[in-house]
């Protein structure tokens, strides 16, 4: 009879049981050495998750606000002076076929103060702009409090604050009769005859509302908006628009963009700047990833330290478990089976650490994203990459200990007690 001497292969459950012996019997040690890898993977997953989530949040915001907004601003003349947009520019732009909305603002040289007691130099850098009536809808904002200018109030000394302007002026709510003091060329007199308080150097304007932040047109956030007729009447404004907001049919936006400069100022199209705010924001969303490399580097260092920890613990384990190795060899384990056992143990240890790290990174991403009202996005490359890195680290750091364990002669292993 021919003897069959095939060495049996361990089944997968058997291998899993054998590979986890060391981890089950030395739990604290296993947990501590897995911790290094967990921290590294968590850092990588969280960094990638947070940047993806914030990017997704920003892109969702841009999407909500629409990508069909174009802005026209006055540029500079050939001689370096500030150019002026023609008074007729908004009307001409409105005649471009696919254009659906045209709104505009015009800069005045006025300054704004909460009260006359504020020193004149403390302007807070706030601009006073004349604004058309449909502006909030065109730039994707709306009043947070009170209301925007209307056909009646645009003729009166009534102002609406941008979000940032309101906070710089220290105004967080609108109440009837609330006023701000606007000083500028030609701004003289008082709003209403009942003004009993101290004299405003310029002109008292009643506050009608405060706008929400305008993501696509952040210059409006820093502005105090008044009606065009009111600006002309009290602030010495000449009526030329300085910024025109153009909404068009989304599919035609590029075509509109090409003709916008020539339409705005047919005489000097080169003096006109045309831009698409959403593209700038999209670029900003893409650029956010650049900061991540530092944190990813820190995560990689942590992973490296974790790998050294695993290798160290496995080497100690091999020394401690000589008699187990000797016993297994005498029970019929081949060198290869001993090697596989210790290699699997190292990989298992690293994968446990990696899985814990992915979970921790994902949870911190979800928690942070929810506080920012973003959709939590954890890219597949982050969690799959984290786990793959853990497997790789386990394999590399377990290789030397596993080879040592397999090379140990069984008689030597049995001799030591």
């Amino acid at each position, binding site marked *: 009879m*021919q*003897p*069959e*001497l*095939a*060495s*049996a*292969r*361990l*089944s997968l*459950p*058997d291998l899993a049981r*054998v590979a986890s*012996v060391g981890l*089950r*019997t030395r739990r604290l040690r296993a947990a501590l050495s897995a911790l290094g890898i967990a921290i590294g993977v968590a850092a990588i997953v969280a960094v990638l998750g947070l940047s993806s989530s914030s990017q997704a949040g920003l892109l969702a915001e841009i999407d909500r606000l629409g990508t069909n907004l174009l802005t026209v601003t006055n540029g500079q003349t050939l001689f370096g002076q500030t150019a002026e947009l023609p008074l007729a520019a908004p009307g001409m732009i409105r005649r471009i076929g696919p254009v659906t909305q045209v709104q505009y603002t015009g800069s005045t040289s006025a300054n704004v103060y909460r009260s006359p007691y504020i020193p004149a130099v403390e302007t807070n850098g706030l601009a006073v702009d004349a604004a058309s009536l449909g502006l909030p809808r065109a730039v994707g904002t709306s009043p947070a409090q009170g209301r925007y200018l209307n056909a009646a109030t645009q003729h009166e000394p009534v102002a609406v604050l941008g979000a940032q302007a309101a906070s710089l002026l220290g105004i967080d709510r609108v109440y009837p009769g609330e006023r701000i003091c606007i000083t500028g060329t030609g701004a003289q007199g008082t709003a209403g005859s009942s003004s009993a308080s101290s004299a405003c150097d310029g002109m008292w304007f009643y506050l009608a509302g405060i706008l929400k932040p305008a993501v696509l047109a952040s210059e409006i956030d820093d502005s105090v908006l008044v009606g065009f007729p009111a600006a002309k009447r009290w602030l010495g404004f000449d009526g030329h628009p300085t910024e025109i907001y153009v909404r068009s049919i989304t599919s035609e936006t590029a075509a509109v963009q090409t003709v916008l400069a020539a339409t705005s100022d047919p005489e000097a199209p080169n003096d006109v700047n045309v831009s698409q705010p959403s593209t700038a924001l999209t670029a900003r969303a893409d650029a956010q990833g650049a900061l991540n490399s530092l944190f990813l580097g820190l995560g990689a260092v942590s992973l490296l330290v974790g790998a050294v920890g695993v290798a160290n613990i496995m080497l100690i384990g091999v020394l401690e478990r000589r*008699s*187990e190795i*000797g*016993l*297994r*060899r*005498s*029970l*019929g*384990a*081949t*060198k*290869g*089976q001993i090697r596989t056992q210790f290699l699997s143990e190292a990989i298992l240890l690293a994968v446990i650490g990696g899985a814990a790290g992915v979970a921790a990174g994902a949870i911190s991403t979800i928690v942070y994203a929810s506080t920012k009202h973003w959709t939590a996005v954890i890219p597949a490359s982050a969690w799959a990459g984290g786990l793959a890195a853990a497997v790789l680290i386990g394999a590399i750091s377990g290789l030397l200990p596993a080879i040592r364990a397999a090379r140990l*002669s*069984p*008689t030597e292993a*049995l*001799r030591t*007690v």
Partner: protein
Amino acid sequence: MTEAPTLVSSRLQSQGPIPVLELENVTKSYGTDPPIPALQGVSFSIGSGELVAVVGPSGSGKSTLLHLIGTLERPTSGRVAITGLDAAELEDRELAAVRATRIGFVFQQFFLAEHATILDNVADGLLYAGFPATERRVQAASALTAVGLGARLKARPPQLSGGERQRVAIARALVGAPAIVLADEPTGNLDSATGEQIMALIEELNGNGATIVVITHEHAIAARCPRRIQLLDGRVISDTLA
């Protein structure tokens, strides 16, 4: 699988049943410059069902002999054959398979896994022999019953006395019915009364057909075995059958 070419010829010559263990002029030296001999020209053979004591003082070569018989080491020269398979003709993987299926070891220090039940400890005796897990447990339970621990399958080694632990180790060596069981100082870590019980168990198991080699330095232990091989300075000085 590779088969030793010498196997066929030796079987033809001997005509009778193949001995479980054959040693022919076995020499083992350690080191190279100069080589220190641990065993010199050892020859004997053990048939199926024998109970043999290998006895000698420390340094006589007992442990080396155990390792050679157990195929944990290869001889420097000479022939070691387990159930007719020449160890020199087998690769490491094949030797591992020989250990997994044909040789059982009992150690002085028991070498039990403390976190596992004794059932799992014994079942692990078959781990590398290719049996499915359920089959391993069935055989382990019957081996534990054979050594008198059938009622405590779920106990863990720390809950057991030294004698009981050695019974578990013996059950692990016996499980799967190997051709030969090698017991290295099986009573060395036990008091004399417990050692007596272990020897009684070994005799009983031998009575049931197991081939057992007891390696010991105690002549009292050796005296209980029908056949005694005395070693001194790496040589067999007597081989007596009671």
